[in-house]
């Protein structure tokens, strides 16, 4: 049985199509996923992301423990700021991609994917042993609601006195929202401005209701995982299990910038990753735009002259481009004359720079 989030009753009342995702019963869409996608691009969308994991690392050496456990330089992170980073195994394979928030000098919150947080929590506990730091998986206590889209700051401002103008991208701020304690983070997975609210489970329903009311005049709509997936794909953001896996290093994924060899001390994966930093991987992660209307999907072969030269990792019809788009790993020397084998027929695709969509700032 899939686990429900604290907002299950709300989703059911909204008539959502629910789906199992990483062991959780999640809203896939409430009505038309295209309408939800466009609402986030043009106004705002409200997401239940309570399946995400929240793992706290605290103590005098919390920063050093994370420097050792992760590929990033977290001890250098300013309190109140956040960083996109990864946890890898000893071979350099990606165990998960993470956002780490430094809430206080000795308190970090590691946000992990639903499919991985048990693995991440166990690895962090193991890797922090030699440090004066405690690892506490509080995923069961916290719900996560995201408000994403160009109107999201106006909507949230209706419900909080927090200084949203002063809250930078990839920063977090403890605040009160609609009378409830919340950590407001200016982060997201849609390519739009937006906020993620980390809250106690019991506050999820009243906060969802307050945001729904406040957002109504701005065109806020509830949005499900289907829209979330097409939004992040347009934004060129990787999804664990699609673009990222334990069989790939951060360099393979074109995300080697997250590996900070310049930080002090050893870290798990350093010896495996160091030799790779100046070696171009044999395949690179690219964006593909189909010239036809059929959609390249996860697992489909990328072909050139009848030879397989890559594989699609994610694909969907793009609302913003009006054509099917995909991310794929493709052999380095191949950029022209590519096609995707869509159930036996070779459909031409063009290689484009990521992201597919960039918001106007």
């Amino acid at each position: 049985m899939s686990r429900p989030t604290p907002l299950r009753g709300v989703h059911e009342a909204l008539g959502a199509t629910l789906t199992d995702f990483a062991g959780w019963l999640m809203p896939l869409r409430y009505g038309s996923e295209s309408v939800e996608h466009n609402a986030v691009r043009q106004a705002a969308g409200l997401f239940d992301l309570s399946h995400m994991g929240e793992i706290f690392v605290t103590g005098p050496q919390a920063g050093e423990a994370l420097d050792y456990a992760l590929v990033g330089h977290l001890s250098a992170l300013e309190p109140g700021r956040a960083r996109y980073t990864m946890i890898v195994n000893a071979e350099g394979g990606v165990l998960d991609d993470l956002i780490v928030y430094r809430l206080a000098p000795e308190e970090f919150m590691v946000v992990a994917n639903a499919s991985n947080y048990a693995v991440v929590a166990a690895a962090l506990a193991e890797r922090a042993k030699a440090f004066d730091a405690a690892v506490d998986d509080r995923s069961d206590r916290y719900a996560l609601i995201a408000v994403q889209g160009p109107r999201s700051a106006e909507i949230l401002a209706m419900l909080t006195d927090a200084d949203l103008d002063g809250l930078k991208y990839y920063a977090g701020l403890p605040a009160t929202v609609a009378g409830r304690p919340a950590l407001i983070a200016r982060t997201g997975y849609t390519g739009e401005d937006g906020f993620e609210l980390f809250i106690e489970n019991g506050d999820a329903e009243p906060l969802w209701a307050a945001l729904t009311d406040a957002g109504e005049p701005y065109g806020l709509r509830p949005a499900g995982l289907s829209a979330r997936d097409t939004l992040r794909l347009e934004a060129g953001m990787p999804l664990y299990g699609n673009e990222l896996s334990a069989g790939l290093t951060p360099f393979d994924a074109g995300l080697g910038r997250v590996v900070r060899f310049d930080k002090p001390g050893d870290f798990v994966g350093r010896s495996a990753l160091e030799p790779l930093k100046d070696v171009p991987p044999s395949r690179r992660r690219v964006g593909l735009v189909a010239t036809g209307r059929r959609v390249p999907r996860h697992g489909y072969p990328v072909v050139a002259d009848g030879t397989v030269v890559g594989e699609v990792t994610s694909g969907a019809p793009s609302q913003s481009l009006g054509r099917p788009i995909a991310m794929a790993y493709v052999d380095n020397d191949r950029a022209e004359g590519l096609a995707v084998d869509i159930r036996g027929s070779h459909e031409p695709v063009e290689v484009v720079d990521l992201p597919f969509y960039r918001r106007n700032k």
Partner: protein
Amino acid sequence: MSSIPDELHYTKEHEWVAGVDDGLTLTVGITAYAAEALGDVVYVQVPEVGASVAAGDAVGEVESTKSVSDIYAPVGGEVIEVNAAVVDDPSLVNSDPYGEGWLFRVRLEGDVDDLLSPEEYTALTSGSES
């Protein structure tokens, strides 16, 4: 609860068939239940006019944001007409699955086998209906 019109026949693959009782020309589409399960339909591939199809043949596909499904010929015969409007605007499958969203017409050759009555299709879909 999605609608299941009384005057149609159905298949286990969630297609509807019109005209079984009154002629040789049968119209085929996908059910409201299937359209809802698929989500927004973005691409429809229909068989070619003139194609000879056997019952159970995969003759086209319906693609949505999240998935792609085959369209099967519910009966054997010759494809005599396809819905150009739904190829042009696949969202018709969502907005009017039993009307403007029809897919193709077949001139029946042989017998009609294994189609479901509205009652049988209701039973098929009620187990997982939310």
